[in-house]
């Protein structure tokens, strides 16, 4: 049996966890700044830490791509945009434990030789922004940011930067454009940010949880971290359970735990109901069903079953939920958030929305099912960035598992579901 392993969440129940006093003395940063920067990169490589922002790219390898001795300034940009539907881990992490992020930023910046770092945080979370601002101010106050940290000669400036409402700004190159003061639209890759990122300088973009995990690796060692998780998906991560579960919430566990195990801890599906479908990693990851309860939640196993681990955003829906309604709503989201830069995504998400609306009202035909999968095929792999690909996940996976439910809609000329029982107050 897999058990929970609170590390980043361990102090969240302390009333002062968001202050320096409640967090600790930045001993990991002190230790790292006494090491050779390359040794810090090596430790993170050895730990096996993979990006927690969705794609799972090895963090140490990403840092290693930053050219050294190039005479250019280097930057660290923390991706705190957290807007993928279902994803809700970085926000409580920054609210309760912002110093783990600030300490991780010091270590990461030192390793990649960056003297300027930014936290790009979505704007719609005021109190989280206050906590970040206060943590950064406190760190400056105690000499943990600014000039000559720990007498090492290393200088670091850190800025908390609020976004202004745009899911696409979570995509790393759109984020950089936004941080430079432009519309947040993705850039052509290559060049990758490691070569030409912020202000065309070498830049690491990492997720909040990736960076916040670094101090524990430096303190406890790469082997300690690699001792958790599975062969290729090492360490712990925060799993976010939401929806029709008895006790939704944040569960920090080794990668490779299963939904069945997590549900056991969370009191199961809400009383009197059964699981119908769920997302392993947010709305951009193909949905799973009750067949997949025992799939280890690591990058490889979830991938082998046709989905993606993504951000471990486990949105859980029981049998009262209409899958067509859910897919329509996600599709409306993608159409709304498409930045408009490329045709397949801009036009494709629009048409998907139109056809799905018709289907949901029971005014479609069986041909419409072919139409939506065709449109999705034309978006997938042909879009400029991964938002377009993500938009096709709910379409393809729902048609695969719930074709009959789509058919039912036009057989009876409407939605076969009463939506009231899905609500929190709908059934007891």
């Amino acid at each position, binding site marked *: 049996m897999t*058990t929970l392993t*609170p590390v980043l969440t361990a102090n969240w129940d302390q009333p002062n966890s968001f202050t320096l006093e409640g967090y600790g003395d930045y001993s990991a940063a002190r230790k790292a700044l006494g090491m050779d920067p390359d040794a810090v990169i090596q430790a993170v490589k050895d730990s096996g830490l993979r990006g927690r922002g969705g794609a799972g790219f090895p963090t140490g390898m990403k840092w290693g791509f930053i050219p050294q001795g190039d005479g250019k300034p280097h930057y660290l940009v923390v991706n705190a945009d957290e807007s993928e539907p279902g994803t809700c881990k970085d926000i409580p992490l920054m609210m309760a434990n912002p110093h783990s992020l600030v300490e991780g930023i010091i270590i990461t910046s030192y390793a990649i030789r960056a003297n300027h770092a930014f936290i790009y945080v979505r704007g719609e979370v*005021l109190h989280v922004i206050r906590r970040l601002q206060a943590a950064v101010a406190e760190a400056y106050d105690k000499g943990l940011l600014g000039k000559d940290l720990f007498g090492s000669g290393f200088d670091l*400036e850190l800025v908390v930067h609020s976004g202004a409402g745009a899911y696409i700004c979570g995509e790393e190159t759109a984020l950089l454009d936004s941080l430079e003061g432009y519309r947040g639209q993705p850039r052509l890759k290559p060049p990758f940010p490691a070569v030409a990122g912020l202000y065309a300088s070498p830049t690491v973009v990492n997720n909040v949880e990736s960076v916040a995990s670094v101090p524990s690796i430096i303190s406890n060692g790469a082997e300690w971290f690699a001792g958790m998780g599975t062969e290729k998906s090492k360490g712990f991560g925060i799993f976010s359970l939401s929806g029709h579960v008895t006790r939704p919430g944040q569960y920090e566990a080794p990668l490779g735990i299963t939904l069945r195990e997590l549900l056991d801890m969370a009191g199961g599906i809400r009383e009197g109901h059964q699981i119908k479908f769920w997302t392993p990693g947010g*709305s951009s990851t193909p949905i799973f069903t009750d067949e997949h309860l025992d799939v280890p939640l690591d990058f490889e196993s979830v991938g082998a079953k046709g989905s993606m681990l993504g951000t471990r955003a486990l*949105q859980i829906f029981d049998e009262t939920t209409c899958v067509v309604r859910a897919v329509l709503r*996600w599709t409306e989201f993608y159409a709304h958030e498409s930045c408009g830069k490329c045709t397949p995504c801009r036009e494709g998400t629009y048409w998907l929305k139109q056809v799905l609306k018709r289907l949901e009202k029971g005014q479609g035909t069986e041909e419409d099912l072919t139409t939506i999968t065709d449109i999705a095929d034309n978006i997938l792999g042909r879009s400029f960035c991964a938002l377009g690909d993500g938009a096709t996940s709910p379409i393809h996976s729902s048609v695969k598992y719930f074709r009959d439910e789509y058919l039912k809609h036009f057989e009876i000329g409407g939605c076969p579901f009463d939506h009231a029982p899905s*609500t929190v107050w709908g059934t007891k």
Partner: protein
Amino acid sequence: MTYTPEVRERLEQDAKEIIGRYPKPRSALLPLLHLVQSEDGYVSDAGQEFCAEMLGLSKAEVVGVSTFYTMYKRRPMGDYHVGVCINTLCAVMGGDQIWDELSEHAGVGHDETTPDGKVSLERLECNAACDFAPVMMVNWEFFDNQTPASAKQLVDDLRDGKEISPTRGPKKLCTFKEASRVLSGLPDGLAADGPSASGPSLEGLKIAKANGWKAPEAP
């Protein structure tokens, strides 16, 4: 409309402080748009001109940016900007019903403001609080685990000028303008208010503690 000399001087001082934090001035554009929103309650013409002047941009460049982001409002919003999450998970858990009832109750739709100027409504996408569904936000503070009744009561209380506390946030809800100022990067000193975490955020930790589960000891 242009700013009076006093207002302008104050804004300029704030703007200079913000611009000074960035290696390149243009990076301060989003913060400055939040700043002018904190003055006017929306991104006004004068505000956009001000941003353009401070950063040496054309007004068209500023407008091109401000219209891309949903948090910049082109019309004055209410003192209390109320959002209801209608993304899939919240919608299913009751957000759709909350929106329908609230919008009818308040008599305004998406991005519209009540005639008294107190409350505006917005349909929100996922606000990264799905474990607290159905979620609402007022001036970007969390109002977790809402019902249609609690939502209507909330808006009535806001319109009646009652003191309201967010579920996870400061004791006293600030106004839309005050919130925009914090977003521009100028703190209001309220960070220590409210819990570290609550409810669902602590579920996993509680279970781990009850079972004596921990991460392995460091070697």
